[in-house]
């Protein structure tokens, strides 16, 4: 075995020993991206027990410029759904994780016209209670043009102009530490279009090229109300 291959195997072995690396992608179509443990703003591990039911947490994954929602569905459990993205193909959304199988994650970019949470503002949010546009509680609502998604069903479109579901992010949960990690997602072609649409804004925020860098071994998850100065409530 040459040295390069040895180093690769060793690295792989070491990685497999960590819980957040131990869970293979359940759905074949969910692309493996380097896993990232979810941490709080102070760097401490985020525990499943600390994920609120009232609003989504926002974290970047798999790239620094891609915002995702971590959602605690409360009494609802998330079930896998067979869905399709016009750009990235068919996939099966992951089931919920955590002690109650009620933690899910998805890419927080509306598939209609690409609204996403910025530090200044978010038109898209998880609403645990009903709202004029959402109708029912527990929906993800984009106020930009009224798209509504159900996070308990793979973030599938419920109503409005969105052509398809919010794209899924696969989570891993460690029963022993109650920790969470993002381990894969669907959307590489969608991300390329998103980056193209917002290139100037993303360069301003992350520096040239910074937005498409992998997030690294950890990624900070904070409540949407802290992530974005203003959040619409349609």
């Amino acid at each position, binding site marked *: 075995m040459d040295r390069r291959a040895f180093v690769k195997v060793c690295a792989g072995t070491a990685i497999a020993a960590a819980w957040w690396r131990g869970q293979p992608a359940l759905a074949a179509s969910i692309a493996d991206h380097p896993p990232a443990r979810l941490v709080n703003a102070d760097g401490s591990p985020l525990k499943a027990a600390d994920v609120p039911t009232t609003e989504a947490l926002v974290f970047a994954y798999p790239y620094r410029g891609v915002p995702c929602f971590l959602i605690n569905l409360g009494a609802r459990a998330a079930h896998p759904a067979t869905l399709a993205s016009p750009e990235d193909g068919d996939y099966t959304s992951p089931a919920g994780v955590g002690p109650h199988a009620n933690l899910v994650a998805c890419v927080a970019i509306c598939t*209609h*016209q*690409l*609204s996403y949470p910025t530090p200044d*503002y978010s*038109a898209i949010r998880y609403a645990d209670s009903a709202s*004029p*546009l959402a109708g029912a509680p527990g929906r993800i609502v984009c*106020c*930009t*043009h*009224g798209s509504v998604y159900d996070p308990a069903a793979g973030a599938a479109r419920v*109503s*409005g*102009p969105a052509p398809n579901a919010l794209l899924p992010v696969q989570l891993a949960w460690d029963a022993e530490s109650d920790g969470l990690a993002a381990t894969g997602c669907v959307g590489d072609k969608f991300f390329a*279009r998103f980056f*193209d*649409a917002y290139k100037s804004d993303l360069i301003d925020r992350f520096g040239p090229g910074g937005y498409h860098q992998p997030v690294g071994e950890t990624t900070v998850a904070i409540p949407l109300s802290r992530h974005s100065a*203003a*959040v*619409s*409530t*349609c």
Partner: protein
Amino acid sequence: MTHEIDRRHFLKMSGTVLAAAPAVLAAGPAALAAGVAQPAGGKQGAPFVSTHRMLDLPKARGPRLVIIGGGTSGLTIAKHAKKAYPKFDVVLVEKRCMYSSCFASNLWYPGIVNLEFLADHSFLDAAHNGGYIYVNATCIGLDRASRTVATNEGDIKYDFLVVAPGISYDYDKIGVHDIDAKVALRQTYPGGFICPTEHVTIHRKVHQFEGGVFIQTVPSGNYRCLPAPYERACLIASVIKHNKLKGKVVILDANPEITIKAPGFHAAFDELYKGIIEWHPTAAVTGVDVAGRTVHTEFDSYKFDDAAIYPNVRAATLIEELDLMAPPTKSNQKEANIDIRFYNLIGDQRVYVTGDSRPMPYSKSGNTSNSEGHYVAKVLAARAQGKDIAWTSPQTLCYSMVDAFPKQAIWVDTYYGYDAKKDAITGFKDTKVDNKRSEANGTAYLEWARGLYRDMFKA
């Protein structure tokens, strides 16, 4: 919270525009393949207007789809038809060489957005990102027999043609018949619902308003952007209030009630602009004395210091010039003679009319044209491949800013129904309204506009 918008107004629009629509159904793809009879173009037998030379374009690499008009409808269809059927060779013909949106333009007057917000969007980028060709030219003629559309830069052969020229003003319907008066009125007190240069003039008026009476008129019929004149009145009033001017906005409304989001606008008039906004229902304009700065209605005359006179609207005159206009029994706004589900000219599945020249009683607004454009793109892709497609309703999601300091908005979201037996659009469907003004809605409004720009100009 209410889930109704003014049903009476909808019925009024449908009544005047569509009640007489006959049950003419599309002949279907088979008829297209067999070659539908296509009469020669030109207005009522007039000769085909042309430069008599071909426009210099790369050879078409697939069915050529020519789109006349680079507004919300044309830009949306150009991009999404190419996405839906990549074999299309799409050419967008637009007479302007600088884009500026009509939607969201009211927000510029009190400074909620700047001109860059409306205009920092390039036709070149849209064409590059969408994989089509942008031609800066003006359509001057059409010969449907030879499938040739003429522009001032030369002729273009098409396989499919979309004509999306928007609206023209109809000053005759507000009693202004004399050509001198029409020109003076349009130049001095423009409506502000067609050209960016009108927006610039109104922006200047609002900034230079030092007090007195500012008149904003609201026409009858299905005019472009139902809430916009009320929104503009609120925003001008907001500036008057903010600047502590001794002035007021007088709204002369041809309609008996505010045509849309009435509770939200009434609340703003009563709670924010008491003494600053005067709303006069059933006050249709019957004449304007430009030099004397006086608007006449049936019962009263109103002096003003400045004004934005919004006359009635009709389909763009190009629809009439290209002989695409419906008879008066089908449209009293000179709109296009098209199939109300599939947008093709009656009897010609190669030619389509979309956007605000359509005869259907949809809201003539940006979101409607954008969502309609997504659907028409699929219709064109289906027709090019000899396939059928099911009708889907456009969406009208429309924010209105009722305050600028701070920015607060209300909104309505609606779809439309179709009655197959009557072959008619039946009314609003799945309507949701938020008449409670809020800053959260105000911020969402800006993102609403940005989303439309992204959809038209980005990949």
